[in-house]
């Protein structure tokens, strides 16, 4: 794009740049890093302003937040502690259990909706009625219904991912190019062949899209559920509880540590899904 730099008189020399050179000249990378550095710097200055210039200089909003260096220090302090890592484990366990159940029920349900017209006419309307209710609105009801906190968190997590996955599977299966089905029919495919060889693999991309979105929602829900239900009563814990606890305990540095941790956790899980998607769909990662 931006190679106007070529003067019209330069000879057409063929030269390949090394990968190191490419990295060094990758302006977008440098700009991104610069932007983040500036962001951190401003944050640092903003939150430490009152330390340097006295209490009357406390800036609004940002002045109340701990500085990045303080957060980093708090993180280093907490890093070797087992409790912190237990929170990670707890949250991951909850996310995974709810998510997996949602996949296990959601994918067949979505496929059934897509394949069978009668099934769809019968079950899709109630599904659509329930879908707009935000998953978190289910939290109190599920706390009442399920005998343990753990189960109610799992249930709400499941709901969060379930609706997204079903909608994606249904949409994906119904937009498969009719010519693939026709070609297979011409070659003598049975109904089962059509399902297993065309519809199922054809829906895979949507399944993974749904899973990625569902995973994001799952983290939100788990966190909220942990915070609302107070997490700890039955040996709960989790990153949401970690944040809430730190807040109650007045350690704002730890709150931010918790936020960053959960950001990393969410990022890791969606990367894992993308990686799995690449594995399962080699035809998708061409070129």
């Amino acid at each position: 794009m931006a190679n106007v730099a070529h003067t019209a008189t330069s000879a057409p020399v063929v030269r390949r740049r090394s990968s190191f050179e490419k990295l060094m000249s990758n302006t977008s990378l440098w700009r991104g890093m610069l932007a983040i550095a500036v962001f951190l710097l401003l944050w640092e200055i903003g939150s430490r302003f009152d330390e340097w210039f006295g209490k009357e200089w406390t800036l609004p909003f940002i002045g109340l937040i701990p500085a990045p260096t303080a957060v980093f220090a708090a993180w280093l302090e907490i890093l070797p502690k087992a409790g912190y890592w237990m929170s990670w484990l707890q949250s991951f366990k909850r996310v995974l259990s709810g998510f997996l159940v949602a996949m296990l029920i959601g994918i067949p349900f979505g496929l059934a909706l897509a394949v069978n017209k009668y099934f769809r006419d019968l079950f899709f309307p109630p599904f659509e009625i329930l879908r707009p209710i935000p998953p978190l609105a289910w939290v109190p009801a599920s706390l009442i219904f399920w005998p343990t906190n753990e189960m109610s968190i799992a249930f709400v997590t499941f709901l969060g991912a379930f609706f997204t996955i079903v909608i994606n599977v249904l949409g994906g299966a119904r937009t498969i190019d009719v010519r693939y089905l026709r070609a297979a029919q011409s070659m003598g495919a049975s109904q089962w062949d059509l399902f297993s060889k065309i519809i199922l693999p054809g829906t895979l991309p949507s399944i993974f899209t749904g899973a990625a979105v569902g995973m994001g929602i799952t983290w939100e829900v788990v966190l909220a559920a942990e915070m609302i239900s107070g997490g700890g009563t039955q040996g709960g814990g989790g990153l949401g509880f970690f944040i809430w606890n730190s807040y109650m305990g007045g350690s704002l540095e730890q709150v931010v540590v918790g936020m960053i941790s959960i950001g990393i956790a969410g990022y890791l899980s969606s990367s894992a899904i993308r990686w799995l998607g690449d594995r399962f769909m080699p035809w998708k990662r061409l070129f």
Partner: protein
Amino acid sequence: MTTASQTTETVNAGRRTTAPTGLALYWYRFQQSLSTPKPYLTVLGIGLWLFTYWLLCEGLRVDRFDKIPGPVAVAKDWFSPTPFQGVSIFTENYYNHIYVSCRRILIAFALATGIGVPLGLFMGWSQRVREYAFPILETLRPIPILAWVPLAILMFPGFEAPVIFLATLASLFVTTLNTMLGVQSIDESYFRAAGCLGSSNWDIFKNVVVPGALPFVFTGLQISIGVAWFSLVAAEMVSGDHGLGYLIVDSYMNNVTVPMVIGMITLGFVGWITSVLVRIVGNWLMQWHVKALALQGR
């Protein structure tokens, strides 16, 4: 494939020669659909679901289900002038909760759109702006909105501001990213054509960038309003005062279950209405898009 089977069904018998318009068309489609199993199955499906719900909670009073209010109990209270558990369509506080939530959503959504759309437009249009702003956005985005609750409470005074802040933040990310994608999806040749025709940069922004990104912007806004509700409910539950999320969690705390269910249903309904409104506004603004899609049979 489905269109083929549908059309063969409608071909026969006493043919109409003129196309019905407006409501008549809907009525005609409804009549046509009566000859297919679809409406019956729909009614049956919803009926079956309600019946199961009733059976589990009220009919058989299965263990644990009996703790959840059944459909009859909910309906009785909801439509009673003297509700047993305090909330019905005749009580003022019911509408107050709805009003408060809607006001918060409106403010948050307006803020997110007002900031997110221009930001996204510039990020999509200018590579430089994108290269600076995008990494920051991407770093903050994976942090769940709920994780911001303590900071929000700390930074903003009162009940109202933190809740609105959280809902705004959630939809801001969605709106900005979708708008940016929208601009990036605009075909290069539109920019070139506009350049050929002698447009200034501002002309290009006004006449190519903005309208070209609109379809994506509205897809983004559809998602964004859903996300806003999601976060609003969460925020109201954790740190609220009034609002539907607060109603739900407050009823739970006070051990009154019927208002809780009423709150859930109302929330679903209001959320659905707002997203329909966004779609209507989108279609109204994008006549060109709607007409083209209609001709493609979508």
